[in-house]
């Protein structure tokens, strides 16, 4: 059984974002690039499943759509424990473009389980996983917070309003993963870092795909009003403000 984890590279989540070119482009100066948090959790869970022989998971591959500058991020995934990497050599123009490239990867290599993070922390489109599944004409399960595999059959826990459902779908499928899938992201150990150097990263050229959307500009949130402090000895005053001034309780 082969598992594919789709990886996006995003600015470190503590980044104070800035823009250049008249607010049209992200200012990448000084940005630390990391594995998108949900993708990192997906990878961790995939490796946990591979660690257990009863699951039948034989290999974990990571795929990324991006230029060669993203190789350190792919290498990091290999250091954490992925067996091999695939990079589609193109800038991820938008969600559909990215999904279409990943669909080609899957069609060429045949994976049984495909994991995608529920969104990337930069574009927040929540789209690549679902688009990929539709392009592959296979089932997708969204808001996945748990995944177990026994003898090649996956059991999936998905979040619904006010609870969760335990569901199954036939392979191959796309699981669109959120928090809860793994406890803590797995960290690369020294041995893993050494081994990653010799693991293969296959580079594929992109297929021709139409770009549907384009960011025409960014805005930063407007600074809020200064905080009004209330005496710690008089919390009643706070409640009165919330009731009578803000009128929210």
């Amino acid at each position, binding site marked *: 059984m082969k598992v594919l984890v789709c990886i996006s590279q995003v600015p470190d*989540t503590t980044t104070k974002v800035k823009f250049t070119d008249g607010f049209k482009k992200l200012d990448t100066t000084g940005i630390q690039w990391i594995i998108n948090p949900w993708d990192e959790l997906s990878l961790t869970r995939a490796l946990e499943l591979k660690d257990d022989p009863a699951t039948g998971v034989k290999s974990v591959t990571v795929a990324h759509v991006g230029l060669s500058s993203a190789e350190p991020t792919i290498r990091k995934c290999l250091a954490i424990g992925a067996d091999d990497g695939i990079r589609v050599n193109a800038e991820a123009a938008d969600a559909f473009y990215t999904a279409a490239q990943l669909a080609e990867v899957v069609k060429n290599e045949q994976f049984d389980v495909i994991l995608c993070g529920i969104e990337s*922390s930069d574009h927040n489109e929540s789209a690549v996983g679902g*688009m990929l599944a539709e392009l592959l004409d296979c089932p997708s399960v969204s808001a996945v917070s748990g995944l177990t595999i026994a003898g090649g059959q996956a059991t999936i826990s998905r979040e619904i309003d006010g609870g969760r459902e335990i569901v199954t779908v036939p392979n191959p499928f796309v699981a669109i993963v959120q928090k809860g899938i793994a406890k803590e992201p797995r960290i690369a150990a020294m041995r893993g870092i050494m081994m990653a150097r010799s693991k293969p990263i296959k580079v594929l050229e992109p297929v021709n795909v139409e770009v549907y959307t384009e*960011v025409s500009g*960014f805005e930063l949130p407007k600074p809020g009003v200064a905080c009004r402090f209330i005496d710690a000895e008089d919390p009643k005053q706070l409640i009165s403000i919330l009731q009578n001034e803000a009128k929210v309780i």
Partner: protein
Amino acid sequence: MSVLVFTENWDGKFKKSSFELVSYASQVAAMMNTTTTVLSLGKVEKSELDKLGGFGASRIINGVGDNLTVFDSQAFCRVISDIAVKEGATVVILSNNNSGKALAPRIAVRLKAGIGAGVSKLPISISPFVVYKRAFSGNAFAHLTIRTDIKIITLAQNSFELIEKNAEAIIEDMAIQLDGSMVKTQVKEVQKQSGKILLTDADIVVSGGRGMKSPDNWGPLVELADLLGAATACSRPVSDEGWRGHEEHTGQTGKIIAPNLYIAIGISGATQHLAGVSSSKYIVAINNDKSAPIFEAAQFGIVGDAVKILPKLVDAVKEIKS
């Protein structure tokens, strides 16, 4: 040309977010000089469907049929896409909730449509079609141009005011032919907490962080939430420690919420936390460190020990409620 909006139902009922969605859709339709058609799938009473007309829908397609009880993204996508084509919809709007996020990208592929997810305002322009959406997890907003003939939008929850109209919608029943073999998802078990106010639906949220010091100190926080009719939430360290369930984790990698009032108790307000709550209308912070970043996001604050202040807040709320 028309606007089609998919309204999910919960055991045959709609929620405030459904009405927000229809209000939003009818405003978009007005910008485009067209009308709004609502699509509802599954069994919903007529009186419930009628409510949607009051928020600007001119037609409601009441899709009923077998095989619609299990939520299967692939099958639901097929049904909604087919109806969108038949209706000649140029804009399809869904909620940016769990099911909307599951369906919108699949529908986008089927309709060869570009998608704008998590929009929180009306489109900036119709031609070209530019939407205003969350980016960098709430640390910025993007103007996204959608170039395709058909556009898919998902609306962030609690981001749009209800706009009531004195109007009625025409309800059309439609038999949905969905072959059972299309539904690949099998539900083995449902685990539901009943009686709890949902975090993503709540108007008021009371949230605790590491400043609560111990999971044993949550009693007064839950009591405060109950008194205010609020949902409870927590910061990431709290859910990582297992003090509270991860479904309460609010922030960049947890739930993104936009209540009218967010009360942050013992939460310092790291960038990642603020990313999940910054769209709240009012933020109240209680923290012992006056320089904590949460006070930069908050309108009202108390500097002090969260555990000591909480019971006093509970008493103050009891007083006004009595």
